[in-house]
């Protein structure tokens, strides 16, 4: 068994186990050391992942596990995003009795997302989706004494249960059609021809199952509630990280479909609906976290554009991963600010914040502008690459729709910026004491700018990546 190929994942698992044990045997006030342990685990995992970088794209473990540029680069994005989430959490979670276990759940959820991104086998995919879901439900409802958090967790769970079941059905049908679970064999089976109706059902079920993790239409409904109700660091996690794995998994799955399944059209329709719905719904929100949740829905729609033109444009996968990375940084920066401000959520409470906490306000504005795609922030390059591959792939109309959506999105992002900058109110601002959330916020804010200016360095990791298949 090529154990070396899954060393990063093994290290994550072991780290999570160690954290659970550590949390069980130490006092609550020492639980922030669990965050340090989690960060060390992630760092180790990053190092081990980088060590896999130089190898050729390949499938290991009898073809169920992909080790290719897409998997590795998205793994790095997931891990770094996970590190930011861990780093913004300790002060928020300090008063929680189960502070330490939180980090273990985060690591397990990371592992699930990584499995999604690397799965080259439908069973492996189901495992990844389930692991990340199971670890995420408690994250959403971590403050179990607080009704909105419970509601968010409940919605997340119900929609998740439904879509995970659909996913499994789809996988079973594919197995029935081809007699296989591995992607290469499935692709071969499809190429030899198969029952069209069954194939359509299978495709629809699997795509639906993945839209849940992606927070894309039609399984997006949990996103705004989770963004609003769950603990702010958990919301940061759930609005960003599952998306990355799900997008890559979706890309990997549709790439093996036979050409007569009109998957480009299907994904394009989901993309358009998702971005439009997310943006229109965000327009009238009066709650910043809910607004960020809807904006996160719309960003999924943009990400899907790259999947639409996969194969038609050489750089589509690079654009996908790069966009997800830029989105992750911007959204995490925004949530880091919200966390730093102790989860301040009503839009009106943001009035005049720029005078009281100028740095937090500037970072929040920068992150919102990055989500819009204002240069030279990193979000601009993400959007630029998306637009570029979409036009190159012959979907100019999709790029126009996305551009129109971007204008709509500018409106609600600006509302937050304007309230903070232009209002003369002098609110009383409580921030989290301590340096964890604050420094995470600053680091994420710097990444927005440094990532934009040094974008060439980041592109090394996404340039000319492709699937092993």
């Amino acid at each position, binding site marked *: 068994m090529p154990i070396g190929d899954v060393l990063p994942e093994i290290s994550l698992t072991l780290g999570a186990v160690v954290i659970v044990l550590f949390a069980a045997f130490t006092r609550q006030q020492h639980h922030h050391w669990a965050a340090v342990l989690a960060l060390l685990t992630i760092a180790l995992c990053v190092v081990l992942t980088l060590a896999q970088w130089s190898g050729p794209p390949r499938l290991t473990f009898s073809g169920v596990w992909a080790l290719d540029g897409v998997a590795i680069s998205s793994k790095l994005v997931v891990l770094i995003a996970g590190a930011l989430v861990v780093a913004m959490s300790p002060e928020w979670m300090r008063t929680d009795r189960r502070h330490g276990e939180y980090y273990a759940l985060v690591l397990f959820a990371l592992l699930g997302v990584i499995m999604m991104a690397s799965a080259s086998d439908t069973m492996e995919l189901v495992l990844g989706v389930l692991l990340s879901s199971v670890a995420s439900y408690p994250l959403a409802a971590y403050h179990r004494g607080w009704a909105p958090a419970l509601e968010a967790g409940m919605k997340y769970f119900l929609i998740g249960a439904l879509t995970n079941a659909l996913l499994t059905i789809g996988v079973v049908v594919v197995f029935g059609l081809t007699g296989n679970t591995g992607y290469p064999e499935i692709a071969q089976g499809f190429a030899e021809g198969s029952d069209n109706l069954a194939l359509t059902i299978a495709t629809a079920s699997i795509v639906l199952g993945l839209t849940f993790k992606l927070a894309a239409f039609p399984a997006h409904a949990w996103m705004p509630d989770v963004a609003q109700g769950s603990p702010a660091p958990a919301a940061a996690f759930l609005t960003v990280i599952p998306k990355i794995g799900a997008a890559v998994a979706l890309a990997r799955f549709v790439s093996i479909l036979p050409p007569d399944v009109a998957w480009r059209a299907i994904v394009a329709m989901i993309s358009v609906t998702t971005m439009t719905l997310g943006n229109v719904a965000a327009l009238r929100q009066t709650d910043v976290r809910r607004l960020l949740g809807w904006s996160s829905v719309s960003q999924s729609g943009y990400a899907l554009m790259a999947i639409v033109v996969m194969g038609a444009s050489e750089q589509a996968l690079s654009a996908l991963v790069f966009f997800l990375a830029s989105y992750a940084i911007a959204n995490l920066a925004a949530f880091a600010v919200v966390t730093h401000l102790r989860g301040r959520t009503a839009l009106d409470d943001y009035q005049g914040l720029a005078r009281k906490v100028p740095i937090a306000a500037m970072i929040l504005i920068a992150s919102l*502008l990055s989500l819009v795609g*204002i*240069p*030279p922030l990193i979000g*601009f*390059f993400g959007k*630029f*690459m998306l*637009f*570029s591959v979409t*036009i*190159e792939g012959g979907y*100019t109309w999709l*790029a*126009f729709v996305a*551009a*129109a959506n*971007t*204008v709509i999105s*500018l*409106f609600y992002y*600006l509302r937050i910026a*304007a309230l903070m*900058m*232009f209002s003369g109110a002098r609110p009383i601002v409580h921030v989290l004491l301590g340096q964890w959330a604050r420094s995470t916020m600053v680091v994420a804010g710097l990444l927005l700018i440094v990532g934009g200016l040094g*974008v*060439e360095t980041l*592109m090394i990791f996404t*340039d000319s990546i492709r699937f092993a298949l």
Partner: protein
Amino acid sequence: MILTATLGLPMLGALVIAVSRRWTETTARLFAVGVSLLPVFLLAWAWLQFDTQGALFQFVEEVPWVPSLGMGYRLGVDGIALAVATMSALVFSASIAYPVDTQNQPRQYYAWMLFLQSVSLGVFLALDLLLFYVFFDLSLVGMFFLIGRWGHGQAQLAAFKFFLYTFCGSLLLLLAIIGLYLSVEPHTFDMRVLIEQQPLAGGGVAAGLVFLALMIGFAIKTPIVPVHTWLPQAHVDAPGPASAVLAGVLLKMGTYGIIRIPYSMMGETFARYALIIALFAVASILYGAFVALGQRNLKRRIAYTSINHMGYTVLGIAVAGALIQDTEYARELALVGATVEMVAHGLITGALFLICGSFWQRTQEYDLDSYGGLLRQAPLLTAFTVLASFASLGLPGLAGFVAEFHIFAGTFDVYPWLAVIGVLGILVTASLFLQMLQKLFFGTLPQRWAHFEDLHAVEWGVLAVLSAGFVIIGIAPEFLLTLIEASATLLVGGP
């Protein structure tokens, strides 16, 4: 290095002001004025060094930024860019020096102004399409915060409208830029390569779409009727100096962009649609003039004359791009005229908006009917307003005339009947300015303005500098014309 310094120094200055918590308003202001003058001197020096017989783009600097995308930090100027950039730098210095109520946030105000100066100059100095877009977008951000924070009336609404509306244009521009980028092999954003290769020549849907997106993007910024509707409100609610910058500099990004991108890079497609563009330009000229005539709000009136004047510029560019046989000389005249119009309009309208700012500082009132008889009360104000108004309506001996003469001389040769219609605009402009002067300065002084103060030393000093600019261009335009002609000949002669 000279162009990098031109951009970099104001940006550095903005950062310094932003972090210097202890500075008083006076210190911040003096520092900002000092820093904002540096680009003026640097560009003037570049002007003296500019070789009118040399290559199209000079002072070229190139540093790879994102080589895997073909994007680089590329700067360089031709005569047109240099003239417009120098004017812009000057308008910025004047606006920064002009007294304004900074509402207890002087550092932020001056930092944003310097930031805006840096990125606006960047638009004119960039030789890389994506870098151009970066600066183009950042100028929106800067202006958004200036209007929203230091504006009056419905400032936030105006700022929103401005940003959203012009951002629509930006995004179309981005899509078009991507279209151009994908049409050359290897993909690059280098303007020199694109100008040389003339991508998408030979028509086709792609060329039409890219061209349309570019033109709509720039038309919104310019603005050309019918996509001008963001302009009046943005102007009315912006603080005086920001209006001066908006009219003097930001609008030029639209027309400069038309010259730099669709005109230079897609000459053939541009020629195919030149007549349509010219028709839109004439519509802007007439619409802007007539609507301005109907305004009773001082600032709104001047805002609409901007639409009228930018119409002249676009007309000049359209004429220059019409590839009609044996009209090279006329087309060159028109292009020179369009550029001079940009410079002249920047200085003149900049001055007029600063004057509006002075009115607002004193009275918080823009209604023309509420004024009268200010001539005795404020002779200096009267003198500068009259001078700027005459320059704006195209009186010979002042800069506006030089520009409009060139444009119409060129147009007569190419589209004679459009020139005839367009000239009507000048007539209307003349009457609207004369009427405005009469309402403001003649007649009886209303009681409520009995204590109206005349211009302070700083105010008239700044106005004197701007006025000197458009008077000199009016009397001895040679220094400007040779610079612009050097590039216009290359652009018109060899598509």
